[in-house]
């Protein structure tokens, strides 16, 4: 009897001492479940989930100064190295062909950044009603709406510093919601479009894009964005450098390395080092829930912005656009395009929206980086 009492007491003491860690194990478990069972952004959710468990085991020192996770964090995230290098890989993966054949699709990428600014207003409104967020914190939270992990990391780190309590929740929210795009966008798009709108067919004309255009495009974008939002140059510069390697035609082996080896290697380290921000005592805070809530608002209003912009364009054009295409303007590539194509096929199995959806989705990648650069340019002037 004494033995069982001792065990019970020990278990109770353990639970009392580690309940916060236990919550983090559950969060880690959910992320791993989503990655493996639902195949949602597994390359990132799995390392983040495993890392969350790893750093929260009782007595774990793996994320302390000098230990492997902290080391990876310091060399890769605290100085933005991983997200920027990852952008070279992403740039090398992206084929801008669908946008170059139909450049008007870029407008949807622009419209779908609405969620960023809407969330900024919501975070500021919360501050006005007593939930304290500084202007820099509000801006960092709003960038979750860029639907782009590396952009969120770079902007949040620049504005808040990597030691901020909000940095971890922002990064985790950015990646988790990207993985949850199919679950978030589907009901929102259904809610704000009619069946008639979802049935609109869009013709796709295959056109050749010259090599000159493909090569000049990344250079032009870098120059224009650099001129408008110079603080966003590291982001757009790395993305477009990767794309130039892909399109130049003389660096095929480098392009392949950037797309596969480099991107995979960085992704492994990025995921696991994000876990350094997920120590229970820093992560479990009421503000984390607010950040997650605002992140969801950002994704919803990105979608709303894109869809309503397509509806607005339909007021003036003869050839109607399927408003669902507007939802693809978010940067979550290629999940968003896949979701919308699938939704179109569910309504009418002869409706092929994929190429338009991919074009808008790729545009979202560019627009989200522009938005990130703008947020940086505006808020870097704010007092810290």
């Amino acid at each position: 009897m004494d033995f069982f009492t001792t065990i019970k007491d020990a278990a109770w003491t353990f639970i009392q001492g580690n309940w916060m860690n236990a919550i983090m194990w559950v969060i880690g478990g959910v992320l791993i479940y989503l990655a493996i069972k639902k195949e949602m952004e597994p390359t990132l959710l799995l390392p983040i989930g495993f890392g969350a468990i790893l750093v929260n085991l009782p007595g774990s020192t793996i994320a302390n100064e000098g230990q492997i996770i902290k080391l990876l964090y310091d060399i890769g995230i605290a100085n933005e190295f991983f997200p920027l290098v990852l952008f070279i890989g992403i740039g090398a993966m992206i084929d801008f062909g669908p946008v170059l054949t139909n450049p008007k699709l870029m407008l949807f990428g622009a419209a779908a950044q609405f969620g960023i600014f809407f969330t900024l207003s919501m975070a500021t409104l919360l501050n006005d009603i007593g939930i304290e967020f500084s202007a820099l914190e509000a801006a960092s939270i709003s960038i979750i709406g860029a639907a782009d992990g590396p952009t969120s990391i770079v902007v949040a780190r620049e504005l808040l510093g990597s030691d901020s309590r909000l940095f971890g929740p922002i990064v985790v929210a950015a990646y988790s919601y990207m993985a949850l795009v199919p679950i978030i966008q589907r009901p929102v798009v259904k809610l704000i479009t009619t069946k008639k709108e979802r049935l609109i067919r869009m013709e796709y004309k295959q056109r050749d894009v010259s090599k000159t255009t493909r090569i000049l495009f990344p250079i032009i974008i870098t120059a224009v964005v650099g001129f408008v939002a110079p603080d966003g140059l590291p982001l757009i510069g790395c993305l477009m450098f990767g794309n130039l390697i892909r399109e130049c035609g003389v660096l095929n082996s480098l392009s392949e390395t950037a797309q596969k080896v480099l991107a995979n290697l960085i992704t492994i380290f990025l995921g696991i080092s994000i876990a350094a921000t997920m120590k229970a005592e820093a992560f479990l805070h009421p503000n984390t829930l607010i950040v997650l809530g605002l992140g969801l608002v950002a994704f919803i209003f990105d979608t709303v912005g894109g869809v309503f912009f397509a509806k607005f364009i339909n007021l003036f054009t003869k050839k109607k656009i399927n408003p669902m295409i507007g939802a693809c303007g978010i940067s979550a590539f290629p999940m968003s395009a896949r979701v919308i194509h699938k939704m179109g096929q569910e309504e009418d199995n002869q409706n092929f929206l994929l190429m338009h959806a991919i074009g808008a989705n790729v545009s979202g990648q560019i627009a989200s980086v522009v938005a990130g650069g703008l947020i940086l340019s505006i808020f870097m002037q704010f007092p810290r």
Partner: protein
Amino acid sequence: MFELRNVIQSSIWEPNKEDFHLIDSLKIMLRGMLTIFLVTAILIVLVVILNNYTKKKKEKEEKAKETEIENESY
């Protein structure tokens, strides 16, 4: 006159950096969305120009090739 314009412009565009409120974030929303659309419009125009230029260049090259073949056959 110039100063007045500056004051009006700054009250429309510039958020209050010391005391940031909802109105300031709305200003940033307006400024941000307008800038993104402006950048997008510039990019669209440049891509259209580039596409037209390369299309014309390709047509010219094809025409020159055809003439060359015709000349050779004569």
